[in-house]
């Protein structure tokens, strides 16, 4: 599906929408009452563009990302990836879909502690059934690109925060996903290390300059590197 949208803050010419939220809301039960974490949000993300989602803590950024990434299902509304409604997929199919199309970078790295750097990068490929030789090749290339080719056999607890996040980026890119999600990827890092991570996330990756990047941050300096900034406050988008 190709559809042209013009987001309010877009500074670029209309292009093809890869991922789209249509009027999504998320309501969490909270004791007796409920919390409306997200209220009727509609937003599209274009191929090859980096979008920063910014807003204060508790404004609903992570909730939005979880819904866009298919980790969770919206209370109402729909999330469409290339026209496919994520809500209509059973969990098994959705898992395969995430594996095939999405990559993830988290604030606290979330490497699997019992796997080495290389095994962590290979993990999505292993899940996808990629043969060993090919996996190893891809992981080696990616770890070289994040300058960790000398730490391939190290385990997460032997790596610094910045290094772990670089492994996580390599892992997120292993399947060459069409959308890369990052939820406050520099949140746990000092500003210098964070800048390095950000460069990796925002540099046009050689094999796919067509990748869509969705980046959550509350750091305006970080946001300024994006093609476009989406502001969120109290669960709603701001113009």
């Amino acid at each position, binding site marked *: 599906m190709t559809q042209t949208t013009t987001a309010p803050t877009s500074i670029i010419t209309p292009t093809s929408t890869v991922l789209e939220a249509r009027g999504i809301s998320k309501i969490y039960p909270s004791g007796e009452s409920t919390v409306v974490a997200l209220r009727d949000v509609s937003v599209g993300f274009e191929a090859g563009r980096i979008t920063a989602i910014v807003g204060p803590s508790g404004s609903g950024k*992570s909730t939005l990302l*979880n819904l866009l*990434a298919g*980790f*969770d299902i919206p209370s109402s509304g729909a999330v469409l990836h290339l026209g496919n409604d994520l809500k209509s997929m059973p*969990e*098994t199919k959705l*898992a*395969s*879909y*995430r*594996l*095939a199309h*999405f990559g*993830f970078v*988290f*604030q*606290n790295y*979330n490497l*699997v*502690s*019992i*796997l080495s750097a290389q095994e962590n990068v290979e*993990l*999505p490929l292993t*899940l*996808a059934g990629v043969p060993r030789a090919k996996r190893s090749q891809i992981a080696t290339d990616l770890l070289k690109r994040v300058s960790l080719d000398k730490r391939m056999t190290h385990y997460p607890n032997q790596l610094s925060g910045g290094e772990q996040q670089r492994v996580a980026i390599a*892992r997120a890119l292993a399947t060459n996903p069409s959308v890369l999600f990052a*939820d*406050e990827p520099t*949140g746990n890092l000092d500003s210098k290390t964070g800048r390095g991570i950000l460069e990796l996330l925002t540099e046009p990756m050689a094999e796919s300059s067509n990748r869509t990047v969705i980046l959550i941050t509350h750091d305006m300096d970080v946001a300024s590197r994006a093609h476009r900034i989406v502001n969120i406050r109290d669960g709603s988008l701001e113009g």
Partner: protein
Amino acid sequence: MRGLLRRPVRTLLTVLGIVVAVASMVVFLSLGEGFRRALGQEVGNIGPDIQVTLEGSDSSSIFGSPIPDVPLEFVGKLQAAAAEFGITQVAPYLLTPRGSLSGSGYLISGNPFESIALNDLYPSLKLGQGRFLGAADKTALVAVVGSQAAKTANLKLGDELRLNRADRYKVVGILQRGDGFTDSFIFVPFSALQKTLGVSDKATGITVKLRDSGDARKTADALKIRFPELRSQTQGDVLKVLDRAIAIGDAFRFGISLISLIVGGLAVANTVMMGVYERTREFGVIRAIGAKPSFVFQLVVLESLLLAIIGGIGGIFIGYLGTLAVNFAVRDLVSVAIAIVTPRLALLAIGIAAVLGLLSGLLPARTASRLVITQALGRN
């Protein structure tokens, strides 16, 4: 998988739990296997084609009632029918236990050596000292003692064995150690034992030899019709009865070991479940990346299975050592290896360990595969 290695102490303890459970099961069940093997050899050795006892008498013993109850007139009746049934030899026997059979007892066997010599009756017996019994010993107070019985009754060649106040049997032969129950037998002449026991017209049972052992089943059925008051059992019947008795014992012992197996299974379930809780975030991560719930489920079940099978293998090994210890401990009481780890027992143990692992893994696996991704990942 490698998650198990993260908590080496807990994992080790769990594996040990399984090891102990499986080992105790192996030792318990090995007893039945040993008996079964010994009986198979022994009854094969004794080899009366048909063993005749009184129908409706105490059936708890395969050799016949403890009190001789088979009228001797049946010896003559069977002999009269010998040609018709292809019978080559008919011999009554008296069998009486002394002491407790389970531990320090032995069996006094009275056989008519005037019609068949001891070494013909039991061709597999080998003499250690002295001589066998034969035709000349018709009424003499003489005894040939099995090696185990010699030990329990503390008898040497030339000693006297008192069976009642008046009758002292002279030990004229000691048998070599065999590997069966005849080791616990003391053989004396039939007529002598008749007098000692004060029974003149009854026997414990009658052994019948056939021209063709292959006809045993058919002949036993035919005898049943001719002599409805007698019970004619073939070797196969005897084995079947023994096997049933052992099977009941097996079931009982298995029941006991089941308790420890269940405890072992719970230990595995606990370890795997705790492992799942500890790794909630990591399971969340691999689910987020795109692992299907079924993948996570299999991962956890496999982990549990691995734990149980390693424990099972260790259990068979320790259980094997246990049977050696059991056999060593009772070596003076019984001459056979009563505890044996047969291949099928080992297979059973592994099978049970695997089933245990599988079952114990189900609940933790279900928990792990149903994690809510956003909750498992925690809040950023």
